[in-house]
């Protein structure tokens, strides 16, 4: 349970990774010793021909470049900027009422807002001719443990509604959809309902307690075709409310994304808190701010959602705009049993493919059968592993199958 709200906005130094999982090439625009302002572009990274900027999140001096682990566990060059605590910002243009599709797209790409929500099904915020559906999630779906921060929704409902509207404009969509939980606090629901009345936004109410890939099923009923691993291919933009709030701030107030809500949970930490944190802060500093780790022998560190996030070996990484939740917990070994062929994994799979049969084919090395079973339609939601009573990592077998034929 989240018990505290905290802020950590003035780290001594920030560390900004130059590359991510997709953009592997970066062009640095500053040198050691340069003075930079908040929001100033310090580098550009390229993914093919798509260029996205890296903005400084503090004002101060560039003190160096360092190779260190990023939040994906890969070694990456980081720009290190020392904070002068003056918070000087460079101005960005603001847009009032009628922002056009082109303007919003420009702001999103110029402020580096493309990769905010990355877990599971969420897509990058990139637009092309195909874009037509906007789906925004206000809760954690397919997520058995993380509890949604409803206060965020209640307090920022206007901004969220406006952000969704902007995103919808950018995607040239007709109606945007917000996924809410049937059992969310009445207050949050009411505020959100009030904020969207005169906008083209529809509420999609689901029961978040049932882990059944309901977001996937909804999107499938929306596009009426087979979904791709990357929903952008289907013209769907799917993201979280935190991202649309950032879009609202960027477009209406000209605020670049320099801070982020991160929830820190788990029995490895003395307090479970939601942090408003400066992007680029080292995670270890946050832990220090909380006290320290609790005295647990073996711990795991998990970033993002429990079904599709990643685990790291080391806590020496910097928070980026795509980190939404970090869990530090005692390592609990669950023994794998043999598959009892119960079929629970086949029943739950939202893509309608058969993970148990794929696993069977993979064990028996049958490539043709793996193709026949539509393995490439798996969206790696992780539900098959979640439901397995024998605690087999079914998704890992499906991934192997995909790699074999892909």
């Amino acid at each position: 349970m989240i018990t505290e709200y905290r802020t950590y906005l003035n780290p001594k130094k920030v560390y900004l990774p130059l590359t991510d999982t997709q953009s592997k090439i970066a062009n640095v625009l500053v040198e050691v010793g340069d003075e930079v302002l908040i929001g100033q572009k310090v580098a550009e990274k390229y993914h093919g021909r798509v260029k996205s900027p890296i903005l400084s999140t503090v004002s101060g001096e560039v003190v160096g470049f360092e190779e260190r682990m990023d939040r994906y566990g890969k070694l990456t060059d980081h720009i290190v900027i020392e904070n002068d605590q003056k918070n000087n910002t460079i101005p960005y243009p603001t847009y009032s009422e009628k922002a056009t599709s082109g303007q919003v797209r420009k702001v999103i790409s110029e402020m580096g807002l493309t990769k905010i929500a990355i877990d599971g099904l969420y897509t990058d915020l990139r637009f092309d001719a195909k874009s037509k559906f906007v789906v925004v999630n206000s809760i954690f779906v397919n997520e058995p443990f993380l509890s949604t921060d409803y206060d965020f929704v209640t307090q920022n409902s206007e901004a969220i509604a406006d952000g969704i509207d902007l995103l919808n404009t950018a995607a040239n969509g007709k109606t945007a959809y917000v996924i809410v939980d049937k059992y969310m606090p009445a207050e949050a629901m009411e505020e959100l309902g009030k904020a969207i009345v005169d906008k083209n936004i529809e509420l999609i109410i689901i029961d978040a307690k049932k882990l059944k890939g309901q977001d996937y099923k909804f999107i499938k009923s929306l596009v009426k075709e087979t979904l791709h691993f990357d929903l952008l291919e289907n013209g769907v933009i799917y993201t979280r409310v935190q991202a649309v709030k950032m879009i609202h701030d960027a477009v209406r107030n000209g605020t670049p994304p320099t801070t982020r809500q991160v929830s820190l949970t788990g029995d490895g930490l003395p307090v479970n808190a939601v942090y408003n944190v400066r992007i680029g802060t080292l995670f270890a500093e946050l832990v220090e701010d909380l006290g320290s780790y609790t005295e647990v022998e073996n711990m795991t560190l998990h970033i993002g959602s429990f079904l599709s996030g990643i685990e790291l070996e080391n806590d020496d990484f910097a928070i980026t705009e795509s980190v939404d939740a970090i869990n530090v917990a005692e390592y609990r070994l669950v023994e794998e049993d043999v598959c009892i062929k119960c079929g629970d994994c086949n029943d739950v799979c939202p893509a309608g493919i058969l993970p148990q049969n794929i696993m069977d084919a993979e064990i028996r090395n049958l490539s043709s059968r793996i193709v026949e079973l539509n393995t490439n339609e798996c969206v790696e939601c992780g539900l098959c592993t979640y439901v397995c009573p024998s605690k087999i990592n079914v998704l890992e077998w499906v991934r192997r199958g995909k790699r074999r034929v892909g």
Partner: protein
Amino acid sequence: MKFITKKPPIVMNSQRTYKKLFTLHFALIVVAIGTVVIKALSKVPETATYTSLDLAFKALAMLVLASVFSVVIEIFYALSEKNTQKFESYKGFVDPINTGLLIALLLPSTTPFYVLALAVFVGVYIGKLVFGGYGFYIFNPALVGVLFANISFNAQLALTNTPLELLKRAIGGESITFKTAELFLGNYNEIAIGSTSVILLALIFIYLLVTRVIDFRISGTFLITVLVITFGVGYINFYAPGDFSVVLSYVLVNMITGLTVFGAVFLISESVSSPTTRETKIIYAVVIGVFMMMVRTLGSQTEGLVFAILFGNMITPLINRTVKRSNAKMLVRTVIACVVIVLLVTVALGLIVQSRLPEVAAIVGGAF
């Protein structure tokens, strides 16, 4: 600070395989106790030289012997493999005991002990351990053992006057009356000691459905199939205008005596030897239901469930390896196909029993 990592997804739900086994274990023990109690309370024929307590003791002895023997075989096998780890806690004993209990419950009370022991040996060793133990076998081990006993020791296991046999004779022209209350209470010559207590089995059925040990898509489909076929065959053969009572007793005898309910609860939904997707589960259940009713109406055997389930197990790997995906369209198609097949089989079986099939064929042929 160093952390341990593993591949996500890292959280799992609270369902565990061994918990399912324990639930099944509990259910089987309840049924076993119920069986013994029912035996102790049952009436014996006036002329008999034994008392009902003798019968109860025999049943108890069979149950205990079968489970102990099954555990012993597994332990010897584990010793020969030098891998006895799993027997360090009670968890390892649950599955062997379940198999033993099932075999004992599936044999009639006249079974000699050496037949029981052989059935357990064949079931556990050839049916299970040879394939690699729990989780790997193709045929339901308990049924392998029981089939072996049924075929090899036909004479020792011969039963007379089970309701199903009487029913067969009734179709042949004898007049026989069934007392519904007696059938429900289990007061008849049963085919296996476990199959008598229908009321208890129904309760266990609900319990296992709620705990999700068995799957309604298999057991339910099976029961519905049997219900439809028996009703149809009964209707075609015994329907006198305005009088459903004979039809109903035909349905009733087929549903609650014999192994129908016992099979639905413990045998056909056994997860390891049944298919894994919802469409194939429905097909599997329908195939078993149809096959069983064919044996019951046409074959020389009175009880076809053991064969039918083993046949179902046999086609399971085949259908498991040919299904492609599972979606709403497939489900609808499967259900429609199954309904059509069940109805056709019902009519065909009903007419064959009445020996009117050639006549009908002639009419249909004449139409062309």
